[in-house]
């Protein structure tokens, strides 16, 4: 039986439509606007488009609520898109983040040539991919969204042309990504074979029947390979340091948060569905899997990070480690609190990572290198920037009074309530490990003598960074509200 999409479905994905139109507008106006005006004009278009998308998503929130009340779950476009509050939330979250990233890019790079529209289109394109990535349970749609999120990322990493690192990083990234997505597709095909459907709830019911079997495990593992690649869980994390070091700081920041958060939410949705139909034994092994993955991820990343001298690479390991912390929330099966903790975590993580990468970018712009040496004496080269960086770093370590602590605390308490004390211990031990390399940056900033020139701090960037830092403090003081919000959100969506 074939279902024909209805016209209101178009209305419900209106934010995404706006984004697609934004791409079109960017391309179109790049043809008609003078080249030297591109940077301002196209950025403005992107900004307006993102703002519109954010507003529309906000306006749609009540609709999502109403639909939630009347129908169990709203699936659009042939059951491919889940329309719910989480979808809208992720739209808003990712758009806001991209807004910051674009501002940062505009500040960092003097792109007046024709790469700017391509850059913007790639960013917005990957944004669309990520939005759909985390709001579907249709595996084929998921695969395409996955590729839509990935492929522009490959391009973005390689965007610094005439830069050997960038070329190398993007090549590695694309190979690793292609392999992972191919394996994932293979897994999807197996799942399809097991159930005859692409719909994950149908699949999970099919999987539930007849107990655990090797085929089911292999199929799920292959699917997980893809998702873990996006989240960068060990051992699918290898791309992350190389790609981040290769990419510009803005792109690295974008990838570190956006693709991880989207894939995490997608994983959360899948695991939620799996868990609902799974047997106790199956759920237990699922929990075990994610526990092991989380511990492995955070430990390997934190241990590897210390020796890095490239700050972007270091931050890449940091982002892997944080992915490890976040995936702990998945290990809490059957309780939406875990996912809610992830949502809170993602929001805060966005603030601190955007900030940290922005600082890296500003330093890199000035010195031409993101090496730790170029941070030496930043404290005297730009006190304000350094102070902000310290806030971001301490927040990343997870020390109060910054929101990084609050979200870690939420995560820990959720884990504790589910008797996952092993994860609690792992997170805390890793917090200790992580302190070393974050402090390495802090040390370079404050304890070493400045030899390089002062770092300029454009107004626009300072506004973004200040908002990030203030956000970290405000979200710490008001983390209760944040927690409540994400709890309500996730309870409404998954509960």
């Amino acid at each position, binding site marked *: 039986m074939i279902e024909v999409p209805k016209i209101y479905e178009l209305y419900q994905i209106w934010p995404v439509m706006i984004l697609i139109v934004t791409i079109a507008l960017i391309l179109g106006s790049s043809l008609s606007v003078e080249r030297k005006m591109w940077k301002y004009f196209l950025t403005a278009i992107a900004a307006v488009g993102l703002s519109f998308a954010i507003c529309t998503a906000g306006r749609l929130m009540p609709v999502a609520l109403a639909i939630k009340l009347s129908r169990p779950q709203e699936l659009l476009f042939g059951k491919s898109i889940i329309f719910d509050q989480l979808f809208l939330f992720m739209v808003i979250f990712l758009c806001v983040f991209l807004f910051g990233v674009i501002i940062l890019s505009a500040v960092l790079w003097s792109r007046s040539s024709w790469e700017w529209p391509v850059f913007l289109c790639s960013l917005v394109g990957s944004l*669309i991919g990520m939005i759909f990535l985390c709001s579907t349970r*249709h595996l*084929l*749609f998921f695969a395409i969204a996955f590729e839509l999120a990935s492929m522009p990322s490959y*391009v973005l990493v390689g965007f610094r042309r*005439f830069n050997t690192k960038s070329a190398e990083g993007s090549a590695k990234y694309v190979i690793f990504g292609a392999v992972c997505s191919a394996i994932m597709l293979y897994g999807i095909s197996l799942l399809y074979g097991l159930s*005859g459907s692409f719909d994950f709830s149908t699949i999970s019911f099919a999987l539930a029947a007849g107990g655990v079997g090797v*085929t089911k495990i*292999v199929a799920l593992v292959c699917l997980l390979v893809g998702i873990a690649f996006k989240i960068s869980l060990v051992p699918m994390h290898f791309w992350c340091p190389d790609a981040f070091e290769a990419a510009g700081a803005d792109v690295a920041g974008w990838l570190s948060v956006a693709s991880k958060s989207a894939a995490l939410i997608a994983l959360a949705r899948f695991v939620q569905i799996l868990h609902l139909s799974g047997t106790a034994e199956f759920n237990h092994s699922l929990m075990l899997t994610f526990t092991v993955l989380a511990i492995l991820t955070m430990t390997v990343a934190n241990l590897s990070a210390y020796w890095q001298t490239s700050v972007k690479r270091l931050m890449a390991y940091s982002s892997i480690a944080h992915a490890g912390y976040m995936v702990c929330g998945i290990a809490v099966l059957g309780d939406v609190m875990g996912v809610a903790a992830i949502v809170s975590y993602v929001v805060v993580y966005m603030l601190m990572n955007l900030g940290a990468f922005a600082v890296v970018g500003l330093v890199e712009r000035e010195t031409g290198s993101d090496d730790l040496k170029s941070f030496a004496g930043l404290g005297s080269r730009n006190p304000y920037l350094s102070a902000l960086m310290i806030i971001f770093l301490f927040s990343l370590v997870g020390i109060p009074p910054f929101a990084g602590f609050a979200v870690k605390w939420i995560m820990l308490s959720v884990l504790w309530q589910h008797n996952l004390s092993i994860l609690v211990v792992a997170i805390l031990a890793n917090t200790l490990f992580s302190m070393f390399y974050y402090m390495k940056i802090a040390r370079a900033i404050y304890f070493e003598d400045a030899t390089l020139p002062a770092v300029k701090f454009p107004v626009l960037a300072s506004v973004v960074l200040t908002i990030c830092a203030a956000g970290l403090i405000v979200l710490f003081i008001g983390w209760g509200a944040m927690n409540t919000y994400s709890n309500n959100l996730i309870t409404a969506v998954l509960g």
Partner: protein
Amino acid sequence: MIETILFYIFAMIMVVSGLAILVSTNIVRMAYWLIGMLLAVAGIYFLLGAYFLGVVQIIVYVGGVAVLVVFGVMLTSRQLASQLLPRAWEVVWLICVTGIFLAGLVRMILKGPWAGNVKQSPQTVAEIGRSLLGNFIGPFELASVLLLVVLLGAAYLARPRVPTLGIKK
């Protein structure tokens, strides 16, 4: 019967081309073996009654992707092939991994509770079209965005380097 023979022929072609690519050191030959493999896959599609897909496979894959690969090969073929051999430990490890992998997969395939095993009659192109614009409208539309963005990016990256051509580091 004829199906069996054809199947084995195609399968043979696939495996042989795969192995040939594995042992080959010449990238141009690899590209041709790839075309062979793709054609064999198309043949299997025909065997499976997926005629439309077989055609698509030939047109898009053999005609598009493989040609793209060949272009790529030609654009980058200044490298001496013999330098590009893997390290010995990699090969050993590789054989172990792939052996395990294959064994596991075969076992899995044999055990798997597949959702059906009854041969159906071939589907028509019309059905595919209807499904493409019906149930699969979401992936279909998204794929269009994907292609747009990807081609844009690919075009950007593949554009020849502008001023510094010829200066090697």
